[in-house]
C-alpha cells in the first residue's frame, strides 16, 4: 500500500486509509451474509444439555402415602363427633385436627409440582408436623383402644414418611427436569419408589406422546406391562414400578434384595450404567422412568421404560407350557463366522456385566438374540434380580446361593479387549460410585464394589492370552489353538458328568455362549 499520511483518516486512535475502510466495510458485510461463515455457525447443533445429577444417596420413603380421611374413618370406626351445646363442649378435637391437616396435605399434593413455591412446600411441611402432633395426641387420648391407637400410629407413620419424601423431592438436584410434568403427589410417589428425577423422562414418555399402546404385552402381571410407541419413533416396554414386592423371587431375597423396598427400576438403571462403563451399553436395554395409565385401574403409573430387545428370547414356552430352548438356525446351516464371533463377543461382554452386577436371573427368557447375516444383537433384559447386598463375590453362581440356577456358573474365561481396558483402568469409587450411589443402598453399593474389584482381579489374571481383540482371529494358546467359540464351548455349559454317568452342576463354564449355543455349534462343526 502506498498512501500518504494525509489520505488516512482517524477512527478512534487508529489510522485507517479510505481504501482500508472500504475494504473492511465490504468484508464485514460479506461476513454477515457469507454462507461459509454465517450458515456454518447457524447450523452448529446446540450443545447437549448436561445430564442432571442424582441425589447423593438413595432415599426410598416406602410408607409415604397419606391415609385419606375415608381410610382413617374406616380404621377408627366412626366419623368425628359433633360438638355439643353450640361448641361449648368440643368433641373429637384431635380427630378433627387430623382431618384438617390431611385435607391441607391432599390439596397441596394435588397441585402441579412446578406451580409450587418454597412457601407451599413449607406450608405442607408445617401441615405434616401438625398432623404428626395431632396423631400423637389422638393416640395418647385413646390409649387402650386398639383400633384408635392403631389408626393414630398409621397416620403417624405415613406422615413421617411423607415428610421424608417431601424433603427428598425438594432436595433432588434434577427437580427442574420433572416439575412441569407431574403433581407433587406423583413426585412423592417417585420417592416412595426410590426414583431419582435424573432418571425420569416424563416430558418425552407420557400417554400424550404415545402414538400406539399395546396394554396386553404383559397382561396378567401385577403391574401393567405395555408396549408403547412414542411420537419420537421409539418403541418401548413399560413396566409399572412396584413400591414393594410381596411375591419376591426366592433368589432375590437370598441375595439381599429387600422385598419391602426393592427399587427394581434402579437395578435396571444401575445395570445399564455398568454395561456403559464396560463400553458395551448395547448388551442391555436403555432405560428410564415414564408415565402410563394402567388400563385396569385407570390410574397413571410411574414405571420403567426399556428399549425392546431385538430378536427373540433364547427360551420360550411351548403350547403345553414347557420351557424350550429356541433354535436360532436350522441344523447344518450355522451362522457365518463373523456372526459367531460377534455372538461370542457380545454374550461374553454380557457375562462380564452380569458378574459385576451380581445378576442372578439370566435365564433364557431374559436374553434376547437376533442373528441376521453377519450381524448379531444380544440384549440381556429384565435386570431386576441383581445388586444384592449379600453377594460380595462376582462368582456367586446361583448354585452357591440357592438350589435353583439360572445363570451360567463361574467367571467368564475370556474377555473382550475393550471391556478389559475399561475394567482394569477403572476405579469403582471414582468411576461408578457417583453414578450408583443414588440408585442403590449403601450396603448394595459396598457389595457392588467388592464384585467389581474381584472381577478386575480376574480380568488381570486373563491377561494377555485370554484378552480377545479380534473374536474371529483369536486362538487359544498352543497347542490347542482353539477359536474363541470352540474355547468357550470347551469350557462347559455349566454341567459335568458325575461318576455315575449322570449330569450335575459344575462350578465353571463358558458363560452364556456355551450354555445357549454350545450344543448347536458343536453339532454344526463350529466349536
Amino acid at each position, binding site marked *: *500500500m502506498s498512501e500518504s499520511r494525509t489520505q488516512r483518516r482517524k*477512527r*478512534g*486512535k*487508529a*489510522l*485507517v*486509509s479510505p*481504501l*482500508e*475502510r472500504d*475494504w*473492511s*466495510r*465490504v*468484508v*464485514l458485510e*460479506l*461476513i454477515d451474509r*457469507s*454462507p*461459509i*461463515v454465517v*450458515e*456454518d*455457525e447457524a*447450523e*452448529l447443533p446446540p450443545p447437549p444439555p448436561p445430564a442432571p445429577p442424582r441425589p447423593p444417596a438413595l432415599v426410598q420413603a416406602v410408607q409415604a402415602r397419606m391415609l385419606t380421611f375415608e381410610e382413617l374413618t374406616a380404621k377408627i370406626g366412626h366419623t368425628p363427633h359433633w360438638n355439643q351445646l353450640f361448641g361449648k363442649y368440643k368433641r373429637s378435637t384431635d380427630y378433627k385436627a387430623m382431618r384438617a391437616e390431611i385435607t391441607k396435605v391432599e390439596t397441596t399434593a394435588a397441585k402441579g409440582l412446578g406451580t409450587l413455591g418454597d412457601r407451599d412446600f413449607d406450608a405442607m411441611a408445617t401441615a405434616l408436623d401438625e398432623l404428626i402432633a395431632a396423631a400423637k395426641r389422638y393416640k395418647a387420648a385413646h390409649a387402650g383402644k386398639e383400633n384408635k391407637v392403631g389408626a393414630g400410629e398409621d397416620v403417624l407413620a405415613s406422615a413421617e414418611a411423607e415428610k421424608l419424601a417431601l424433603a427428598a423431592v425438594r432436595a433432588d438436584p434434577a427437580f427442574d427436569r420433572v416439575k412441569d410434568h407431574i403433581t407433587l403427589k406423583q413426585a412423592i410417589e417417585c420417592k416412595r419408589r426410590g426414583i431419582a428425577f435424573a432418571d425420569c423422562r416424563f416430558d418425552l414418555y407420557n400417554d400424550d406422546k404415545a402414538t400406539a399402546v399395546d396394554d396386553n404385552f404383559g397382561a396378567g402381571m401385577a403391574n401393567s406391562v405395555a408396549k408403547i410407541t412414542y411420537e419420537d419413533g421409539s418403541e418401548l416396554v413399560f413396566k409399572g414400578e412396584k413400591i414393594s414386592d410381596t411375591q419376591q423371587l426366592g433368589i432375590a431375597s437370598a441375595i439381599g434384595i429387600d422385598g419391602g423396598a426393592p427399587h427394581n427400576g434402579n437395578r435396571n438403571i444401575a445395570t445399564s450404567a455398568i454395561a456403559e462403563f464396560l463400553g458395551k451399553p448395547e448388551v442391555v436395554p436403555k432405560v428410564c422412568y415414564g408415565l402410563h395409565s394402567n388400563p385396569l385401574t385407570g390410574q397413571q403409573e410411574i414405571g420403567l421404560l426399556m428399549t425392546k430387545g431385538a430378536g427373540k428370547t433364547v427360551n420360550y414356552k411351548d403350547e403345553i407350557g414347557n420351557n424350550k430352548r429356541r433354535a436360532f438356525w436350522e441344523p447344518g446351516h450355522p451362522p457365518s463366522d463373523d456372526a459367531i464371533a460377534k455372538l461370542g463377543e457380545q454374550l461374553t461382554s454380557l457375562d462380564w456385566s452380569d458378574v459385576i452386577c451380581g445378576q442372578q436371573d439370566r435365564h433364557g427368557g431374559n436374553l434376547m438374540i437376533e442373528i441376521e447375516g453377519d450381524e448379531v444383537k444380544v440384549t440381556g433384559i429384565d435386570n431386576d434380580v441383581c445388586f444384592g447386598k449379600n453377594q460380595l463375590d462376582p462368582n456367586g453362581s446361583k448354585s452357591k446361593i440357592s438350589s435353583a440356577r439360572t445363570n451360567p456358573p463361574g467367571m467368564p474365561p475370556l474377555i473382550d479387549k475393550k471391556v478389559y481396558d475399561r475394567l482394569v483402568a477403572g476405579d469403582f469409587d471414582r468411576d461408578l460410585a457417583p453414578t450408583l450411589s443414588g440408585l442403590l443402598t449403601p450396603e448394595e453399593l459396598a457389595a457392588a464394589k467388592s464384585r467389581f474389584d474381584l472381577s478386575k482381579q480376574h480380568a488381570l489374571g486373563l491377561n494377555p492370552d485370554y484378552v480377545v481383540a479380534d473374536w474371529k482371529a483369536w486362538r487359544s494358546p498352543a497347542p490347542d489353538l482353539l477359536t474363541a467359540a470352540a474355547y468357550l464351548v470347551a469350557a462347559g455349559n455349566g454341567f459335568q458328568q458325575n461318576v455315575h454317568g449322570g449330569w450335575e452342576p459344575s462350578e465353571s463354564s463358558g458363560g452364556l455362549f456355551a450354555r445357549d449355543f454350545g450344543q448347536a455349534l458343536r453339532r454344526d462343526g463350529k466349536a
Partner: protein
Amino acid sequence: MADSEQQRSWCIRVLGVDPAAPGAPAGPGASVLAGWQAAKEAADAQLDALARALRSRGDPDFDQIAEYGLFGITGGQSTVGLIAALRGYDAAAPAERAAAGAALGKAVAAWRAQLHASALVDALEDNPLGVTVDLRGTFDAAFRQIVATLRQPA
C-alpha cells in the same frame, strides 16, 4: 495421478481439480486427511498473519474481522462433512474404498465450489494490508493430491 486423459477430464469436470497440475502425488496408502490437515494449517497460518495485521491497527472494525471473519472459512459444519469423508476414506477397507472415494469426491467438489464462489475469500485474498493470503491455491494443491490418491489403483 489420473491414469488416462479420460480420468483427468472426469476429475476436472466433477471435482474441478486437474490432477495433472503441479502438486506432489500422494503415495499409496497416504492419508488424505493428513494432506487436508497440512493444507488447513498452511491456510490458517496465512489467516493468522492477516489477523495479526488487522489487530495491529487498533481499529474496532478490523478487530471484528480478525475475531469473527476469518477462521470460519476453514472450520464449521460444511468442513465437518468434508473431514468426515476424508476420515471415511482413510479408514475404509479395500473393498469399501470405491464407495468412500466417491463420497469423498463429492465432498471435495462441494467444499471447493463453496470456496471458489465465496466473495469473502475474494476480499481476503485481495486485502489492502499487504498480507499474502492464497486460500484457493493452498487448498487446490491439497485437493490435487487427494484426487491423485483417489485415482490410484487400490
